[in-house]
């Protein structure tokens, strides 16, 4: 059951200076990542769930070195990812790939699908020149694109197809890990379903390890083995998907589950799942950053930031109350 840990992140921190008005003496910073720790095991799908401002996209980009971190450690197969340069970094890029959220911006408008894929094969010397055409055709088929896609430009494709082109491109370098940054969020429901099926198949057929970033709990539930919930730059809960969805430990997770639309008639109760708004990231609350909105907050929460309390089966939450497993306040589906 315990598969080998491929990718491990420890206490990642990254701030962005806020664009304050000229003349403000205090240049406040936005802490996009405020100490993120997690691990990704071979062959699993780990979902990162959270709403806007939680830092999940920053995390995804930091893991592929698109964004540099202020502090923290990333280890991949034992190597220190943050220290990689030149060729070693290129090797890392081969093994950990990223697909972006926006299918309209992430493809070069002036390159055909074939050119994009061939370039990857060429730069990384994956197949000798003669084998490239065949390999390109294989990748196109793998991503379930029409065979004539090779000669066409991105603008001739729909959003869902473009995402598949992006996936084909990522797969062309034969990665071990695929980081999917909200890749289905911009797609229609029926197209999304096709994409989810594709991801499931790719994982099964290629043995891919997937880090799936999303804000949609339903999609996450459908794909993930394990789930990590992020809030204001930290992982507030992590565990096996079934465990997290059925017995959420953290009040924020409970609220997310209550808020997610379900195919249940008249399922919406009177009271909102979660009151209040996300605090300004320039002014993260003291103690537990969730306490202003938490229905279960008490004195200690205001003062002391909770640490990850590990429950059974590696299901843990950053909540003072997690020591006693809180009763699932969220309604559970299909039971």
């Amino acid at each position, binding site marked *: 059951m315990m598969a080998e840990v491929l990718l491990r992140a420890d206490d990642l921190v990254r701030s962005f200076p806020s664009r304050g008005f000229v003349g403000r003496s205090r240049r406040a910073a936005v802490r996009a990542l405020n100490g993120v720790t997690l691990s990704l095991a071979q062959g699993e799908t780990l979902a990162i769930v959270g709403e806007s401002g939680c830092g999940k996209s920053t995390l995804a980009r930091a893991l592929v070195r698109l964004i540099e971190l202020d502090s923290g450690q990333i280890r991949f197969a034992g190597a220190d990812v943050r220290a990689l340069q030149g060729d070693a970094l290129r090797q890392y890029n081969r093994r950990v790939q990223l697909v972006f959220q926006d299918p309209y911006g992430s493809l070069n408008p002036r390159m055909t699908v074939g050119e994009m894929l061939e370039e990857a094969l060429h730069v990384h010397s994956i197949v000798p020149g003669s084998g490239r055409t065949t390999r390109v055709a294989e990748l196109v088929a793998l991503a379930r694109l029409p065979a004539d896609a090779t000669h066409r430009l991105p603008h001739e494709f729909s959003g869902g197809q473009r995402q598949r082109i992006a996936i084909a491109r990522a797969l062309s370098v034969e990665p071990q890990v695929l980081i999917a940054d909200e890749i289905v969020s911009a797609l229609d429901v*029926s197209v999304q379903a*096709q994409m989810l099926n594709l991801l499931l198949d790719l994982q099964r057929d290629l043995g891919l390890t997937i880090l799936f970033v999303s804000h949609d709990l339903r*999609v996450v539930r459908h794909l993930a083995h394990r789930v990590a919930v992020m809030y204001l730059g930290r992982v507030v809960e992590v565990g096996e998907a079934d465990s997290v969805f059925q017995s959420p430990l953290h009040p924020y997770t409970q609220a997310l589950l209550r808020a997610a639309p379900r195919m249940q008639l008249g*399922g919406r109760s009177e009271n909102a799942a979660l009151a209040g708004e996300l605090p300004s990231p320039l002014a993260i609350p003291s103690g537990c950053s969730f306490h202003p909105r938490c229905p279960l907050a008490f004195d200690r929460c205001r003062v002391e930031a909770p640490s990850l309390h590990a429950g059974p089966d590696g299901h843990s939450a950053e909540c003072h109350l997690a020591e006693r497993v809180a009763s699932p306040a969220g309604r559970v589906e299909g039971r």
Partner: protein
Amino acid sequence: MSAPLLSIRNLTVRIGNITPVQDVSFDVGAGEVLGIVGESGSGKSLTLRAILRLLPDVAQTAGDILWQGRDLTTLAEPEMRALRGGEIAIVFQEPMTALNPVLTVGRQITESLTEHLGLRGRAARTRAAEVLDLVGIPDARRRLSSYPHEFSGGMRQRAMLGIALAAGPKLLLADEPTTALDVTIQDQILKLLLRLRQEMSMSVVLVTHDLGIVAETCDRVAVLYSGGMMETGSVETVLARPSHPYTLGLINSVPQAKNARQHLAAIPGMPPDPIDLPPGCRFAPRCALASLDCTREQPRLRALATDHATACIYPHSVVRGDLSFAS
């Protein structure tokens, strides 16, 4: 069902040489929430705007739009203006583009109050503060003088609702009001909508792509695909016993707990290009039940039972689950 408040019959919108809305018919009763569900290109937003004649000049509208018996398509513009924001209000998906950025929120509300209820000065401002309070904006009196950009996303949406509801409309048209919001904020806004519907005895037409929202929030639902109405009925009936393959496909596309990590019965293919529509039923190319008859002519909505209508000529195959899409 008692006489509907809003009655749409054979609404067709033509822009240039495409017909993004074709022969759409549905009713909205008093105090009910009707969900119009569809994906991109279904024409759901255009349908909504057509009701209030908010389409660009190049669009040609045909069909009947009856509001409490009056035909809106032939109404004179000044009367139409009185209706907009008065008896019928509309809110959009993106508050930042729908709200006037250079006017304070308070001003935008009092504008509506003056226009539709004749309130002015202090009376208007007091009522405006009440409205902001009603939509759950804390510190309402002070926030009257805030500008839209000073609000967060969820608050802006509340402000937009406030402006829309200030004059106490009987019908609220909501075009994907929560799509751009986080799920916890979406939850707040939807609950607010339901509460307001109750308190103000209002009807709501909620356009969305999310069947989950329809299930939880709406009383009745209308399913749109590529400009045509595929199925209408009560949410209970349509979701439990869908009688159109597209509806079934949509339902199957939503991930649910019971089929985690398994294939979804997705709908194969893609929606048709509006310039190059298939003959007959627009869904036929993707439909497992499609026969030659389906391509002969455009099927029209036919009643299956009271308050359940479908545009499929094989509705009973769908209901009986004879349908299975390749997964």
